[in-house]
């Protein structure tokens, strides 16, 4: 492996590490803020001091998570500039604009209202304090919106045009970027899954108090709110997850095929519920892909196209092409991509040599306002990223990782719906203490909620490989041409820094939970 490929691999590892740790801190902030706001609303309406005490306790845990997690996303932004400079330039303002809005919103909304939330008890009116708590929660979620919009654009690049002179994609429609189906669904799915995580967290901590025979009223009332909140949003998460399947079938069919371990496309394709994949060298067809699998007939076609007989493309179809279903082969796409890359290289040489005629000719090819330019961009530049691939099989992501993570995410999602329903029922019947084993399950469900979130991101990011921008830029080309030594060094620095932060959070969080609502230290 040459040094540049080492740089690419370590840059990927570093970004994955940073994103994984970042997502350990973020989702609890997104969901717990709203649970606290609901509790404070009850206090505002009833005037019952019990609810003020309960709100303050959960806000304290929210504050710990917020403080430790704050700014971990900055490292990701640093990495864009250092490790992914080709990517950062190529995406231009499309990525920069949402990130800038995110930064401004985070600063003004969160920084202003978080201070009121934590310093303002008995100093500002109850109404203003309540509004601040809601705005803190909304602000955190709006911050998430912008970064998720930017990520969605990478999965489905819309609302932009390529500027040959600046070698950048430039935004042509902010609204197309903001309201693309991928962006809307990604935001809904990601944010509501964070609400689920927060609800599991509240139920888990409350279950611990019940097992210890402490703070029983607070624990029971918190479980009542969290189980309703969790049940509603786990159903929304499931619904948006189903919608994700249909969108992925349209815009990232290879990701869907990898999620299902589907090698040969089928009409009336079934959904695999569980299965064990064979080694890569043996997975040449549907029959050879699994040691065993259990599935539900037709369900994949229904989920993908809302039609039980619809055709769902498999990995082999997408690699080799399938003219019967209008699927172009990867080989053909590679040829077209290479043509686009060659034209870019010709433009580079023309600029070097001052060949104005060639510059004008190539500029016309990339001009979307002319029929010739529109055709070149549609028929060739749309496959630009393929021009860097060595072989058609390069378009296949890591199938086992994508396949198993999908089952972990969906399985845990279904488990959480059941968990919330059970806790809601036990809460309604006031029988929570009777079933101590269920309380233990709630405690052990907290890390599972984090696992589900990580699995979801793994599917989204591993499943779209080799692309950093779908069809336009492979990950290897996006990386900066820097020495691998610096990337390896920073990888281990981040590993140490984030691990210390996580250990600090866990230590402070456990200590505050053990102290309870009245004994902040």
């Amino acid at each position, binding site marked *: 492996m040459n040094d540049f490929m080492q740089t690419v691999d370590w840059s990927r590892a570093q970004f994955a590490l940073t994103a994984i740790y970042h997502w350990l801190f973020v989702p609890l902030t997104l969901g717990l803020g709203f649970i606290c706001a609901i509790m404070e609303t009850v206090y505002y309406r009833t005037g019952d001091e019990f609810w003020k005490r309960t709100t303050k306790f959960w806000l304290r845990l929210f504050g710990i998570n917020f403080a430790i997690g704050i700014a971990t996303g900055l490292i990701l932004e640093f990495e864009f500039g250092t490790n992914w400079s080709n990517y950062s330039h190529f995406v231009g303002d499309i990525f920069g604009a949402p990130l800038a809005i995110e930064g401004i919103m985070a600063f003004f909304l969160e920084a202003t209202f978080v201070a009121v939330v934590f310093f303002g008890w008995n100093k500002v009116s109850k109404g203003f304090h309540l509004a601040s708590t809601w705005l803190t929660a909304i602000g955190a979620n709006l911050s998430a919106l912008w970064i998720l919009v930017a990520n969605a654009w990478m999965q489905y690049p819309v609302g932009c045009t390529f500027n040959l*002179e600046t070698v950048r994609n430039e935004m042509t429609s902010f609204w197309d970027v903001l309201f693309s189906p991928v962006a809307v669904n990604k935001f809904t799915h990601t944010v509501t899954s964070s609400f689920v995580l927060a609800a599991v967290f509240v139920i888990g901590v409350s279950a611990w108090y019940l097992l210890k025979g402490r703070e029983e009223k607070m624990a029971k009332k918190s479980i009542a709110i969290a189980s309703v909140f969790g049940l509603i949003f786990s159903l929304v998460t499931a619904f948006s997850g189903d919608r994700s399947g249909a969108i992925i079938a349209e815009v990232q069919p290879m990701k869907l095929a990898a999620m299902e371990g589907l090698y040969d496309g089928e009409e009336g394709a079934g959904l695999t519920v569980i299965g064990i994949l064979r080694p890569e060298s043996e997975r040449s067809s549907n029959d050879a892909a699994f040691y065993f699998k259990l599935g539900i007939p037709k369900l994949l076609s229904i989920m993908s196209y809302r039609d039980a007989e619809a055709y769902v493309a498999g990995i082999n179809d997408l690699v080799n092409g399938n003219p019967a279903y209008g699927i172009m082969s990867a080989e053909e796409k590679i040829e077209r991509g290479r043509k686009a890359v060659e034209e870019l290289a010709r433009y580079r040489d023309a600029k070097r040599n001052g060949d104005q005629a060639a510059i004008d000719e190539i500029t016309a090819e990339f001009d979307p306002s002319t029929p010739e330019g529109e055709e070149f961009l549609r028929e060739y530049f749309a496959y630009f990223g393929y021009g860097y691939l060595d072989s058609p099989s390069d378009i296949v992501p890591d199938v086992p990782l994508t396949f198993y993570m999908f089952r972990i995410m969906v399985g845990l999602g279904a488990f959480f719906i059941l968990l919330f329903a059970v806790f809601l029922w036990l809460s309604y019947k006031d029988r929570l203490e009777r079933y101590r084993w269920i309380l233990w399950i709630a405690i052990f469900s907290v890390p599972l909620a984090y696992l589900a979130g990580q699995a979801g991101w793994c599917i989204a990011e591993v499943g779209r490989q080799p692309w950093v921008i779908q069809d336009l830029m492979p990950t290897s080309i996006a990386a900066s041409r820097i020495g691998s030594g610096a990337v390896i060094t920073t990888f281990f620095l981040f590993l140490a820094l984030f691990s210390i932060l996580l250990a600090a959070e866990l230590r402070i969080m456990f200590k505050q939970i053990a102290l309870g609502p009245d004994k902040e230290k």
Partner: protein
Amino acid sequence: MKDKLVAIAGFYIDGFRQMRLGRTLWAIILIKLFIMFAILRLFFFPDPLGGKSDAERADFIIENLTEKP
């Protein structure tokens, strides 16, 4: 206006003074930001495109996109 600004400043000063757990959290935030901006940003995050004009950046990227590493 001046009274309002004084009241807002007092609100924050009072809030910081009365913090208990918050002091630990602020210490963590400040140490973390120091590590990120004073150490990592300065020594480990050089900007390959920094100091270049728009045209130079375009030339730099077009080289990277059209020549194999």
